[in-house]
């Protein structure tokens, strides 16, 4: 098996050399090879799955046509809650993440406590599994019974995602800010702009443009993680699929939800690719 895997790239290299030798005919030959290789690859994969001993049972429990249609009808509307969680969280994450990154970059000994807090925050919330943050805030804070503090699981679900993802996003922003050459800030300061205005007009706009692709990548992760909010109560797509599974003793609703999430994230993924490619073209 290991031997066969290593043989793969060598065949590709041969094909590449051949296409270069063949010149104009190379393109047709490459397309043909790609088509044949794709069909063979997925054919073998499908055969392995379908011929496995447990397949008939899995097929019945995960890919039941009738349950599929039924749960698709029930789960799809619940996806709106995921989208709502995602959109609200995203706005706050963009703002908090940037604030954290800027606080961390404040110079001078006076701001040491601020920098320290920012680093500690990032370490903490990147370290704790998202699911635990959701449990701790979703169940813990409302249990304190403080007046004026929201108790809605939706609120704490969104808040937890904001807390966790702000930590990731602040690191992305920070990388962007550090990638802007110091001469840009020097030029802004030399015109009499304060440090805050130099950041606002010169450094941050350039930093944000550079980090849009990695930011969107984090948001693809966020779109998926909206499903975790289900664990403290709100009935979104994943929670609805759990309900359906329990009602039918059939796992097809999970498959439906997985499919829906993929459909939800693909546009964002392609948009990210497109932006990255455009950025590369501009750099060239």
């Amino acid at each position, binding site marked *: 098996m290991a031997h066969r895997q290593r043989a793969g790239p060598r065949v590709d290299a041969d094909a590449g050399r051949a296409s270069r030798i063949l010149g104009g005919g190379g393109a047709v030959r490459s397309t043909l090879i790609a088509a044949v290789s794709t069909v063979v690859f997925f054919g073998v994969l499908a055969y392995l799955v379908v011929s496995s001993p447990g397949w008939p049972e899995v097929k019945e429990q995960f890919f039941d046509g009738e349950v599929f249609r039924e749960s698709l009808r029930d789960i799809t509307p619940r996806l709106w809650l995921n989208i709502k969680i995602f959109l609200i969280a995203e706005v706050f994450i963009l703002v908090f993440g940037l604030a954290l990154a800027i606080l961390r970059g404040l110079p001078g000994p006076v701001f040491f406590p601020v920098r320290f807090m920012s680093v500690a925050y990032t370490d903490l919330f990147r370290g704790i599994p998202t699911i635990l943050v959701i449990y701790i805030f979703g169940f813990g804070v409302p249990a304190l019974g403080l007046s004026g503090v929201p108790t809605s699981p939706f609120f704490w679900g969104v808040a937890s995602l904001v807390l966790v993802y702000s930590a990731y996003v602040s690191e992305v922003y920070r990388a962007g800010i550090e990638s802007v050459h110091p001469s840009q800030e*020097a030029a802004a300061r030399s015109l009499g702009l304060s440090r805050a205005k130099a950041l606002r007009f010169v450094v941050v706009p350039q930093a944000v443009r550079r980090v849009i692709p990695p930011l969107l990548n984090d948001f693809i992760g966020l779109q998926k993680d909206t499903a975790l909010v289900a664990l403290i109560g709100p009935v979104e797509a994943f929670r609805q699929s759990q309900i359906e599974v329990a009602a039918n003793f059939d796992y097809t609703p999970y498959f439906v939800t997985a499919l829906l999430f993929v459909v939800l994230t693909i546009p964002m993924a392609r948009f990210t690719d497109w932006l990255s490619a455009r950025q590369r073209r501009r750099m060239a």
Partner: protein
Amino acid sequence: MSAVELHGVRKSFGDHEVLRGIDLVVEEHDVVCVIGASGSGKSTLLRCVNLLEPIDAGRIEVGGRDVTAPGVDPNQVRRGIGIVFQAFNLFPHMTVLRNVTLAPREVLGRSRADAEAEAVDLLRRFGLADKRDDYPDRLSGGQQQRVAIVRALAMRPQLMLLDEVTSALDPELVGEVLNVIRELAAGGMTMLIATHEMSFAREIANKVCFLDAGVILEQGPPEAIFSAPREPRTQQFLQRIVEAGRL
């Protein structure tokens, strides 16, 4: 009252002392050129004057005011001093017009219409009127450097610092930037210029300072420095420049 006075200015980066006691006076409407080998401290000297680099010892006065005294607001000081860098340092995400109007609007609080009208006037004066809506990466190096000069002038500075502004340019683009500096000098602008363009320094300067290993070894009128340098180090430096065909 002199435009700029430096008294015993010292500056180190780590263990390396770049400026080792600089005394220099620039009178109003003077053009002072600082020459010297790469690494002799020319750029650092200029960056100290507009407080981009804090100095370790000594005193700098701009327009009679000690700008290195404690409690001085550097933003306030920099408003009156334009600096132009070797690498232009235009803001790549802004159009030419926005590059020029940013500081007048955000620092001086001038209205958009007002700032743009003056920027357009300046751009026209330096042959850049048709570039106002372009982004810097669409311009040639010479055009970018002229925009950088206009950007500094838009703050109506009393003093301009030019840090090897032609060193990053292709040879055929040097002339257009030097012409702009000539025009500024003719208009009476006080300038402190770090440069490798010896014949230009000879033509434009009232005073030339030879900076060597962090001290001003020799200063005087250009004829004296270029034709009859007293110090052996100055003679050596100019000899090498002549051999390289640059004078």
